């Protein structure tokens, strides 16, 4: 386990460094002169000089990079140019909202995917399995924002059952969570279906059946347990997609989360804000994946010796 832990941690650190280099290169080096980019052509010379000072542009790129990186990990996330507030303050309400959204969505996706995938694997030829299979195809193809717009149309405008987003507590999260969860559920259902289907053809399943174990014990205790590792691995990877998806979904439902903040930063060329938010999101994904990998390795010793 020690070697595995070490490998994973080094991999994590390297990836984190690479991502921060890419982020820094795109935001700070690609535009040539970031201060000119922020101000446009209308800026006065004084404003230009002030901004250069604020962005530390007089220092060489390399020291700016390390200054930013070290600051980032010390929790010094800089200030937004447009809101004139520390990024940390802007995030105070946004982060809990986005995380709640993402976690509910993962939970809901698993809740939908595991039973439907199991059903599809065990009842291949039933009409319901066919319908579920078509449903997963559609779930993977439907653009998330379109799904959100349709759900708003149907449940909020036509039936007036649920609020179309906004911030009225839990009930206003229902539609966004469904929008976020359904496409993920579709992908996961396929993996449960395929993984369980493969597990059911293994020799040990035949043995279990042959010695006369009841069908349910074979299914739940033998097949599902072994198939579960793979499903959870995929579920972990889906989390990254989900965090990216929140950007779109927050826009559809007008939720003031991290995605909304990021998009405003992009449109207003708020370089420090974008740089920090992208880093935060990616670090969130990486830390989650690392914890996830280690957790899985604790559960399944086979994974430690890859």
């Amino acid at each position, binding site marked *: 386990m020690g070697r595995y832990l070490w490998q994973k941690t080094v*991999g994590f650190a*390297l*990836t*984190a460094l*690479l*991502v921060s*280099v*890419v*982020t820094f290169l*795109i*935001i700070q080096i*690609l*535009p040539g002169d*970031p201060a000119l*980019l922020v101000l446009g052509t209308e800026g006065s010379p004084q404003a230009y000089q002030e901004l250069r000072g604020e962005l530390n542009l007089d220092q060489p790129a390399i020291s700016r990079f390390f200054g930013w990186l070290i600051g980032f990990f010390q929790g010094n996330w800089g200030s937004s140019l447009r809101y004139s507030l520390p990024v940390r303050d802007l995030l105070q309400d946004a982060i809990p909202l986005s995380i709640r959204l993402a976690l509910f969505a993962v939970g809901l996706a698993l809740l939908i995917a595991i039973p439907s995938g199991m059903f599809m694997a065990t009842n*291949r*030829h039933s009409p319901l399995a066919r319908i579920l299979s078509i449903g997963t*195809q*559609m779930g*993977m*193809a*439907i*653009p*998330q*924002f*379109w799904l959100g*717009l*349709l759900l*708003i*149309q149907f449940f909020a*405008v036509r039936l007036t059952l649920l609020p179309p987003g906004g911030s009225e507590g839990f009930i206003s999260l229902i539609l966004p969570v469904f929008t976020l969860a359904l496409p993920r559920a579709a992908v996961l259902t396929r993996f449960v279906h395929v993984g369980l289907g493969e597990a059911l053809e293994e020799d040990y399943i035949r043995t279990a059946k042959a010695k006369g174990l009841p069908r349910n014990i074979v299914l739940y205790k033998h097949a599902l347990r072994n198939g579960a590792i793979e499903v959870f691995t995929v579920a972990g990877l889906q989390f*990254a*997609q989900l*965090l*990216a998806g929140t*950007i*779109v979904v927050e*826009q*559809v439902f007008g939720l003031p989360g991290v995605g909304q903040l*990021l*998009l405003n*930063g*992009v*449109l207003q*060329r708020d*370089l420090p804000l*974008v740089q920090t938010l*992208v880093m935060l*999101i*990616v670090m969130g*994904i*990486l830390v989650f994946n690392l914890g996830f990998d280690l957790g899985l390795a604790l559960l399944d010793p086979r994974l430690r010796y890859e």
Partner: protein
Amino acid sequence: MNNGCPMNRRCWGIISIGLVVLMTLVGYFYTPYNPSQTAVLLRFQSPSLQHPFGTDHFGRDIFSRVLVGGQVSLILGLISVSLGALVGVLLGLWAGFRGGVWDEVAMRLSDGLQALPIILLALLFATVWQSGVAVILWSIALGNIPVFLRLTRNQVLKIKAQPYLEASRALGASDRRMMFYHILPNLRDALLVQFSLSLAGAILVEASLSYLGVGIQPPQPSWGRMLRDAQSFASLAPWGVLFPGFFIALTVIGFNLLGDSWIHRRYR
């Protein structure tokens, strides 16, 4: 899988993509109305014989706009995925064939790129560039490198162990000949599958970005952007939301099914 299934998938895939491509081709030469012609008096017409998909908030014919709106998505998807695939395959061939340090470097680079979801990459580009075609092109191309790199590299490692490669090496084949003449042709099916799935992903990403307002910009009609504009008037004119989204979904389903049908053909 039962035997009828792959055929079905393939058929449905071809039908959906065929329909979308046909529409887009027709839209290139002929549309019932000028897609950018505004007519204030005809705003928010519900679907009718004159306007099969209704009209939008400027009185523009939504059917004509849907016909034209796929052009950029399809062409851009094709170019950017090809670009990513080309770079990814070349790097993957090199990494898998050479192994050692090359392999390690390539894999770490691909890890780093993979940690950045394509949408985030695009938002980074959109911060420093003018929103538009370039943002989508580069983010999808870069974002697709890791998938193709990994796929190629893993396949190369498998193929490299085959006796026929040892034989060709013994006959004095050069590295380049082995990579492009003996290994690459064996990757064709796997790459076709991935290409099709990546195209589906690219269409979705482009639509999402255009919806967010950092993708294709207004005078040029695109399905994602049409949805963005229609959202504010959705309770008044739901058809404006319905049709463009339907065609995005149809395109994505088509490419997904085509990719799937290749997988099933291979592993049947």
